């Protein structure tokens, strides 16, 4: 398990590691703002049309949303355990934890797919066949629902591809306690995917159900 030399622009591996980790965080700060626009649109329309949003929230599939919230929170744990494992030099354990995270991500997508199918058959796709035509603002809620969960799913898929690569490379013995930067970066990214769902879950599935 040799560590690769630092890239030419860096003085040493530690500087390279710090720069990569900070780069990932700064990238995620841009992602906050990127998603933030959708949350802002949600907040504004929730203010403008509280009734329509409340009745629209009641139409989303709470069961699927809750299962997925639990799945994603748990996958955050397994990923963190994977990072801890490689930092302690246990690459076999790391491969297992990362693979488990990947599987939880895939299950999330499967549940989400089933939920989408149900949404479509219930006529929750905005447009001509939209089921809640009495309330035009409910249509805006569902646009945001599809955009936010869709964009989240895209990020999740990117994360799954990343994890597959990480698991494979760890299996090849490319990472060690001395050099685990890519595993840590994937962990940070996965945490962000988790973070977004933590906010989407109450907004899209719960707030309208309260009496």
């Amino acid at each position, binding site marked *: 398990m040799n560590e690769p030399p630092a890239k030419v622009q*860096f003085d040493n591996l530690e500087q390279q590691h710090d720069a990569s980790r900070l780069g990932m965080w*700064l990238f995620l700060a841009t992602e906050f703002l990127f998603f933030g626009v959708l949350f802002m*649109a949600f907040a504004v329309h929730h203010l403008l049309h509280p009734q329509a949003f409340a009745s629209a929230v009641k139409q989303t599939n709470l069961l699927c949303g809750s299962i997925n919230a639990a799945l994603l929170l748990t996958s955050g744990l397994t990923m963190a355990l994977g990072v801890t494992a490689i930092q302690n030099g246990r690459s076999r354990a790391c491969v297992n934890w990362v693979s488990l995270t990947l599987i939880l991500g895939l299950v999330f997508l499967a549940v989400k797919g089933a939920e989408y199918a149900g949404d479509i058959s219930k006529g929750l796709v905005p447009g001509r066949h939209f089921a809640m035509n009495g309330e035009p603002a409910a249509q805006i809620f569902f646009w945001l629902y599809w955009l936010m969960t869709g964009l989240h799913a895209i990020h999740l898929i990117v994360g799954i591809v990343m994890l597959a690569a990480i698991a494979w490379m760890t299996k090849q013995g490319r990472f060690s306690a001395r050099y685990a930067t890519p595993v840590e970066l994937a962990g940070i990214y996965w945490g962000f995917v988790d973070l977004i769902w933590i906010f989407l879950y109450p907004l899209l599935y719960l707030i309208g159900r309260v009496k």
Partner: protein
Amino acid sequence: MNAVELPPPVETEEVNYLTCECGVKQWLLTTDHKRIGILFLYTILVFFTLAAVAAALMRIELLTPKGDLLLSADYNKLFTMHGVLMVWFFLIPSIPSVLGNFLVPLMIGARDLAFPKLNLLSWYLFVIGGALAMDAIIRGGVDTGWTFYAPYSTTYSNSHVIEMAAGIFVAGFGSILTGLNFIITIHKMRAPGLTWFRLPLFIWSMYSTSLILVLATPVLAMTLALMAIERIWGVGIFNPALGGDPVLFQHLFWFYSHPAVYIMILPGMGVASEVIPCFSRKAIFGYEFVAFSSVAIAVLGFLVWGHHMFVSGMSPYAGTVFSLMSFLVAVPSAIKVFNWTMTLHRGSISFSTPMLYVLGFIGLFTIGGLTGVFLACLAADVHLHDTYFVIAHFHYIMVGGMVTTFMAGLHYWWPKIVGRMYPEKLGQLSAVILFVGFNLTFFPMFILGGLGMPRRYHAYPPEFQIYHVLSTAGASILGIGYLLPVIYLLWSLKFGKKAPPNPWGATGLEWKTPSPPPKHNFHRTPIVHEPAYNFPPLDAS
């Protein structure tokens, strides 16, 4: 900044970043920040030329009160093309992506940026974005103006809005990556001894610019995406007929685009802060104030976007807050002007080309900034909104500020970039031509705006004609001011005098390495022992 342990500059034909591996493939796949800077230079010059042609056509149309050269629909497309290309494909990448790319690692004593491959990717994203935008223009153009206001852009316009938005979206990710690269590089890769308060002020301005690039651009990207989605599927988020709110589009758009105005001036301020000490032979007056005012502009710049929306139906209470915030952002800008002036005071000033450009910049920026205070005032803005006054104001910042300092920076670092000197007399002449031409073009617009001439019209009442004629005459002088440097800078590539490592006797690490620099910038990592702009004391007589 004095660096020890550097070998004396070698006068023989040394291999440098331009002469090593010079095939087309080596250029297109380069990860050298200096070469990427040059790729950006060529690309933005293409867009600048196209946007300038659009401006020239508009000025010719406006010579006469009647709309006799262009249909009003074509005029709409021309000013949109001019705005989109100038803002996103020239001004925003101008100093950051060209000079910043070239200089940030050199100034901090690094071998390259932290993420060289991302740096190359940002050029490719920029080119792809530019190609999409050009394709949208060639296939018929866009008539929404560069602001893409909903619901016109989302529902009514019959032009290639989506493709144009896609181009800006892609190019936007290029600027995010550039900003990210700069921030991480400045944090992590400074040479030993180069503490934050020894950094050249250009680096502080690049850092502040990058902050805006990184934190504002994603908002624009998502907003344009929402606009395009709304256009394709009739979503309704911005459409009042479906319960949406068009003012929300303006909020989101200006959350990006007002800070983006500071992307288009902060780098210019950085250049001015380098050039003025060098040609006054004095340390900058109040280093910390100039440095922190850059950061203050970047932060306060995010709190003022609503001043674009005073007449949009926004709540007047929010308008009052935005107006007060906008007055506030004038403070750090004024601090900079005072500090530059104090640096000139009792300096040993030489009127070299970069200095002439920068002196012009100080005056033009001051006028542009002060007229901005008029516009930030609620009552005045109701009259001046969407008139030529606004056009004049922001061109004093964008052209008088950014383009002038881009020219200053290009001349100042030209010997470092290409290793040749440009002809000094021609340089001084073109700096003067630019200043005269610029003022003649845009000063009449202040009067036009005050008299009530609205922007974006191709026909106007005859009493305005005299100002438009003056403006068009100025534009043709301005055109010569742009053309002349292109000619003699190209000439200098082959026939210019060979440049020594430090032709201006400037301080700063970039002048401690040969011109042009070797592939990894420095033969040995420099170590810094002094503050920035540590010029020997002048005779105080």
